[in-house]
């Protein structure tokens, strides 16, 4: 029981980035988080700071992702300074590798269409097998080529969460964890967080991932998010062989090789399946035959938080001023925008970009997807 200026619901990458950003903006923040076992996309993700391919259906999402990628070095530097951790941020550009010419052609066409909608301001290259091999010598003969996005990169997502948490606590933030927030009640002034008597907050920011779907209507918001499962294989550490991240295989700063990722609509099941594990392994070996004898030490499944169109939802409640919603499935890529641009807006500033309204949940009311 206590009082806070801002209650951030959810201590994952989205919630902690927003909390850290609110704190930077001079706000007093308490984060409410679940216990050790929960659906946690922040513990199960691929660590990409990724631009290419995002926004095909909403060019403003491409703009927003690019902005975040550009802001990432600033966020990383500040977090590393505050936490003493190395986040292993590297943005050398990245690849989306294709095993067939048809797949490569389809992706190239989609990227070209996106570039046209962005008035030509959208860098990428389509590389055939031979040109790709000059940059990624480990590719196998089955690889047709790849899309290269010069703004793509990766980071250690686990150290990102730890650094955000350490920085937030180090600057006087507070985390209340151990149980999911079951209810939020608008009061005459502010909100009650949790069952009565609960905490009292002047403002509340919903960053609860899949939990937002249930919490949003309590404060006049709409978060039609659903789970989408991704499974990933984690291999033993290897000597560096992959100088660039790519969408299916990346090598972390420590040498671990990660292979992803499935995409399945299976509800709230974050398990793994032998079938998906085998398919991912086959694809990885086709792309990089040199990996055939590397050992998988662990696999995991985690749930992406998907809105109907896959894009973020950012919304301030009109019915209950002071409540807002932040949800997306790219908590790593967008961490920089969330901390450095979105949080100042939630703290009372003006919209950080002229197109912020593109991310309003209003778009679902007008489309059949809602």
């Amino acid at each position, binding site marked *: 029981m206590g009082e806070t200026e801002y209650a951030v619901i959810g201590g994952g990458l989205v919630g902690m980035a927003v909390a850290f950003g609110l704190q930077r903006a001079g706000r007093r923040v308490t984060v409410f988080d679940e216990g050790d076992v929960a659906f946690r996309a922040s513990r199960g993700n691929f660590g990409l700071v990724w631009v290419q391919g995002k926004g095909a259906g909403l060019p403003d999402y491409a703009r927003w992702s690019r902005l975040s990628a550009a802001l990432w070095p600033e966020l990383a530097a500040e977090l590393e300074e505050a936490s003493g951790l190395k986040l292993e941020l590297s943005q050398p550009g990245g690849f989306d590798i294709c095993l067939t010419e048809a797949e490569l052609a389809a992706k190239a066409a989609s990227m070209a269409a996106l570039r046209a909608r962005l008035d030509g301001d959208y860098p990428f290259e389509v590389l055939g097998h031979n040109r790709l091999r000059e940059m990624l010598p480990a590719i196998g003969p089955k690889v047709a080529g790849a899309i290269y996005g010069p703004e793509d990169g990766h980071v250690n997502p686990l150290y990102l969460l730890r650094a955000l948490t350490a920085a937030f606590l180090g600057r006087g933030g507070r985390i209340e964890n151990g149980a999911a927030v079951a209810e939020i009640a608008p009061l005459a002034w502010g909100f009650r967080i949790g069952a009565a008597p609960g905490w009292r907050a002047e403002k509340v920011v919903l960053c609860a991932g899949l939990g937002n779907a249930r919490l949003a209507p309590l404060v006049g918001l709409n978060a039609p998010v659903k789970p989408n499962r991704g499974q990933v294989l984690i291999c033993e550490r290897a000597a560096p062989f992959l100088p660039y991240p790519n969408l299916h295989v990346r090598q972390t700063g420590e040498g671990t090789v990660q292979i992803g990722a499935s995409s399945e609509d299976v509800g709230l099941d974050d398990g793994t399946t*032998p079938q998906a594990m085998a398919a991912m392994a086959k694809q990885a070996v086709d792309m990089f035959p040199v990996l055939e004898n590397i050992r998988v*030490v662990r*696999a995991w499944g985690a749930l992406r938080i998907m809105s109907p169109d896959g894009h973020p939802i950012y919304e301030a409640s009109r019915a209950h001023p002071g409540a807002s919603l932040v949800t997306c499935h790219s908590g790593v890529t967008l961490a920089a925008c969330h901390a450095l641009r979105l949080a100042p807006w939630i703290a009372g500033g003006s919209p950080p970009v002229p197109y912020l309204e593109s991310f309003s949940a209003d778009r679902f009311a007008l489309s059949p997807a809602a």
Partner: protein
Amino acid sequence: MSDPVPLIVIGAGPAGLCAAAEATAAGVETLLLDEQTAPGGQIYRAIGRASPERQAILGSDYGRGARLLEVLDSGCLDYRPSASVWQVTPEREVYFTIAGQAQSLRAERIVLASGAMERPMPFPGWTLPGVMGAGAAQTLLKSSGLLPGGGAVLAGSGPLLFLVASQILDAGGRIAALVETTPRGNSMRAMPYLPAMLRMPSYLTKGAVLLARLRRAKAPHFKGAHNLSAQGGKRIEFLRFTAGGRDHDVPCSLLLLHQGVVSNVQITRALGLAHDWKPLPRAWQPRLDPWGGSALEGIAMAGDGGGIFGARAAELQGRLAGLDAAYRLGKLTQAARDAKARSVQRALAAERAARPFLDRLYQPAAEFLNPADETLVCRCEEVTAGQIRGFVKLGCLGPNQAKSFGRAGMGPCQGRVCGLCVSEIIARARGADVQDVGYFRIRPPIKPVTLAELAAMACAGPNDAK
């Protein structure tokens, strides 16, 4: 897809061999998968090929294992050694690798008999080369006739520590020191459990014989030792500890540790079964019914993987699980199962009764459950106890957040070595119960498997010809 195998037994120690024996005797076609190259499990390791001299040193309890191997002659049994099982699904698909070839088979019923492991004994310096488990040294004796000859130091607590010491002496080896870490208050706290123990007087007699053997050998014996640290540059050079109010440095080139044995819960955890924290042995135990059955239809556990009750109990649990499998597969009537089970259940109850006394008497000292800050707890990822405590200060409530913050449990051993300790450290730091703190979520594969092995399964389902 071919028909499912009626019964797959995983593990060829006493529990698995006995489960297979009962099932095959009832006519159940049984596949027995074992990770080792020869049957017997850890307790009867290499029993089929140990020379008579070696058997004499290892004693009659070891020799008992030989008759468990008779099941291998059964026409109903398909025994496959060197099989590394890396995934068991709730749908009873078993994935395993033999000689670099991954395979999968679906079973109507599964008996898990994955056994026990020595409780890891973390303290400063325990990762130095030349420091190993006392049980590991016994494995070397059983399977290779290797004897600590140059004066080993044995340190820790528990019956196996005395047994190994005695076997080393019987074989003509030398012990530089026996450093017992059992806290002095343990024997008083174990007294309430003594009456039940007396149902199995043979255990007390065996203990007395071992202690007398050690006294005769006149090896230096320290009791109530604490503040242990292993010291050395590239390998162990000496063990430092406090005992009897004095500090000691005992030089050694081999330091053998023991702190009891605990269930290997990797398979049951990966299956998502519920586990209960047992405060006396300070370990987890999967929740099972009296036949070893789990909450998952058709999947049972027998032996020390379901709680430590010893080799005899493992045989009995194996028999019960095998009988129940035969009944549920229609090879025994319920009445026949129950009739055969009656004497087994009685004997099992007596074996179990002895356990609380031993668990309390040899409960590890606090410094091995909740070690000093500088102790490497996760050996794979090199995470210290102090770092885990630091994660608690960041709001970490349990081992899964600790894993995420600092990689504890993310290495190839998947938390087998650090899991118990990480949960204990977090519990103490939070002032919470270990049951509430919980355990790592274990994910497949539970043994490393190559990408090529996995990839080869991409087109094939369970039981497809490979």
